[in-house]
């Protein structure tokens, strides 16, 4: 990760301060840890992607002809587990959050730098356990570990996969803890709560979920392992347990976990929309507080995953109503981003294209979420491809679009190099088209009744056309994801050196050098301006005022 083209006597920064493997593996610099996470999650992203590719190839034809049924079950399980726990949840917080939270609030580092490194090691330990689990047989329960299948029937590696997720969960808790303390304690003088970038608000809300939710799923997984190995009667009805208790506990975390994925993305979109329309974000306070509202409401809706599982109809009615409530803060954000664009001076650089893509895809994912909140429709489409399409619109269309938008926006700051803009715009377009082609047909398939998790649909050959479209889209999407990786790597060696603030963006991180020095700022910044002061930034300075002839 050195900068080989750097001129002699190049300014010292976090990348060239020290070299060698040890300087990376023992670093406590939040920026280096962010890059360690970047490499690790990218590795897992491609593993998860490989499983997705095999799933889509199997579904290319109605007959189950590429893999066996058992293998297919393992493929979608491992795809889900890897993507959720080892890519999506750590993606933005652990990479961009780690890099940017201290910089955006004017701090030298996170509050607990060594705990930050520990969180990466826990992630790696969990990841190695998961890899071992995959290589020695894998799991076939679906990423949701539903009981009693997971505790009483399957012979696959439940305990090992559960422990891997348990360990990785603690990495997530530590990241959340670090962010909460850092945001409370380490803001630069003048950086009041009402001046915080919305990226910080989003990460604060995310951290609350990580702190409060993750322990619940960790304990739930321990209970599954305990029932499986010690035959305690917790979830198995034969032993006096209740399988729905598992679903309650699991979704108490795993539904808010979706907000761990999407909230940071929303933070990124707020930064990008403001910068590329050169305006203060419309309704700053509402957008900030809507992040907190999403985090809180997100904890009140989990049982909408259980509507057909046998929960009380009265409880289902309450959870249905509460699920609608999440739409309100989400809509506040979407409307405010759109209002920010109004009369803005809009530029269509790659980060902005990703942000636009995010808004479109998130809106479709969010609105179909309302379909699923409605009890009547949910009964019709539960466990069909409609649900699969819905959550991929949120978790891939939303979260990954935001992640890529953020990677492009801050890449000059992270690497000190500019990426090729033309290629980046092309990649954004390919991702957008590939995404729709992959997942839109799945809405139709689900509505027509194609169940999820089936490897053979030969009794419904009329579904093949839509499945072929989806598989073709997945191939295009794969190219769209590969492209940024290639040109980011290319730019590290051949990209033009980036100026400190290539976008002329507001925000403290842009006042530091590109790449930043180890402690981020040479002098502790003092904040005297409001967030997103683009009008001020773009106003001509008196001495630069155009001369009237």
């Amino acid at each position, binding site marked *: 990760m050195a900068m080989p083209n750097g001129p002699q006597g190049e300014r010292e920064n976090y990348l060239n301060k020290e070299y060698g493997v040890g300087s990376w593996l023992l670093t406590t610099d939040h920026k280096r840890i962010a890059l360690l996470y970047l490499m690790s999650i990218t590795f897992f992203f491609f593993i998860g992607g490989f499983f997705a590719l095999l799933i889509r190839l199997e579904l290319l034809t109605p007959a189950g002809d590429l893999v066996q049924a058992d293998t297919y079950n393992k493929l979608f399980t491992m795809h889900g587990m890897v993507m959720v726990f080892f890519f999506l949840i750590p993606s933005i917080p652990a990479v961009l959050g780690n890099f940017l939270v201290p910089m955006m609030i004017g701090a030298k580092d996170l509050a607990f730098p060594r705990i930050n490194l520990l969180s990466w090691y826990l992630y790696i330990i969990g990841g190695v356990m998961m890899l071992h689990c995959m290589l020695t047989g894998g799991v076939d329960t679906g990423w949701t570990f539903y009981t009693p299948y997971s505790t009483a029937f399957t012979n696959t590696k439940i305990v090992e996969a559960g422990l891997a997720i348990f360990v990785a969960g603690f990495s997530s808790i530590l990241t959340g803890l670090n962010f909460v303390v850092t945001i409370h304690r380490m803001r630069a003088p003048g950086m009041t709560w009402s001046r915080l970038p919305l990226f910080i608000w989003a990460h604060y809300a995310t951290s609350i979920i990580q702190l*409060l939710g993750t322990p619940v799923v960790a304990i739930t997984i321990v209970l599954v392992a305990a029932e499986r190995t010690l035959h305690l009667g917790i979830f198995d009805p034969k032993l006096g347990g209740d399988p729905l208790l598992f679903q309650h506990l699991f979704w108490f975390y795993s539904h808010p976990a979706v907000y761990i994925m999407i909230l940071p993305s929303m933070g990124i979109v707020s930064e990008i929309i403001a910068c590329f329309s050169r305006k203060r974000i419309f309704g700053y306070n509402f957008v900030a507080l809507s992040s907190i509202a999403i985090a809180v409401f997100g904890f009140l809706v989990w049982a909408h995953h259980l509507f057909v599982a046998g929960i*009380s109809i009265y409880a289902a009615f309450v959870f249905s109503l509460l699920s609608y409530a999440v739409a309100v803060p989400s809509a506040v954000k979407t409307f405010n981003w759109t209002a920010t664009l109004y009369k803005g001076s809009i530029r269509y650089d790659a980060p902005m294209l990703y942000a636009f893509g995010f808004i479109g895809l998130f809106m479709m994912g969010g609105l179909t979420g309302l379909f699923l909140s409605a009890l009547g429709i949910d009964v019709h489409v539960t466990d069909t491809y409609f649900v699969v399409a819905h959550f991929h619109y949120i978790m891939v269309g939303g979260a990954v679009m935001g992640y890529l938008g953020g990677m492009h926006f801050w890449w000059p700051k992270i690497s000190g190099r500019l990426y090729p803009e033309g290629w980046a715009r092309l990649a954004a377009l390919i991702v957008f088209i590939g995404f729709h082609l992959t997942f839109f047909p799945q809405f139709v398939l689900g509505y027509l009744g194609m169940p999820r998790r089936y490897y053979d649909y030969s009794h419904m050959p009329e579904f093949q056309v839509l499945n072929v479209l989806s598989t073709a889209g997945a191939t295009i999407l794969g190219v769209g994801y590969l492209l940024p990786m290639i040109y980011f790597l290319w730019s590290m060696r051949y990209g033009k050196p980036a100026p400190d603030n290539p976008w002329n963006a507001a925000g403290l991180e842009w006042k530091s050098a590109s790449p930043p020095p180890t402690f981020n700022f040479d002098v502790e910044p003092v904040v005297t301006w409001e967030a997103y002061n683009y009008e001020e930034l773009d106003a001509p300075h008196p001495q630069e005022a155009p001369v009237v002839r």
Partner: protein
Amino acid sequence: MSEHGTSIGFYVMIFLILLVLTGVTVSAAFINLGPLNPILALGIATTKALLVVLFFMHVKGASEKLVKLVVLSAVFFLLILLGLTLSDYATRLWS
């Protein structure tokens, strides 16, 4: 935090109380109290959790309101978990 609160002896005493309460939980499991079984077990568990939070996690002596707010919000979220889950159990048709 009070002076005796920081001494090692005090923490050892809390630890011993926790061990005794664990013993009580195990012993109580052998006595059939009917519907009081879960109430007793959860009562002891809550007492133990309180001891840990107040003394080992230093919440009792914390001067900062923020610390108390954090603990209270965690308890609040636990109540959401229990309350909304029980809303299902209390109204489910078990027949």
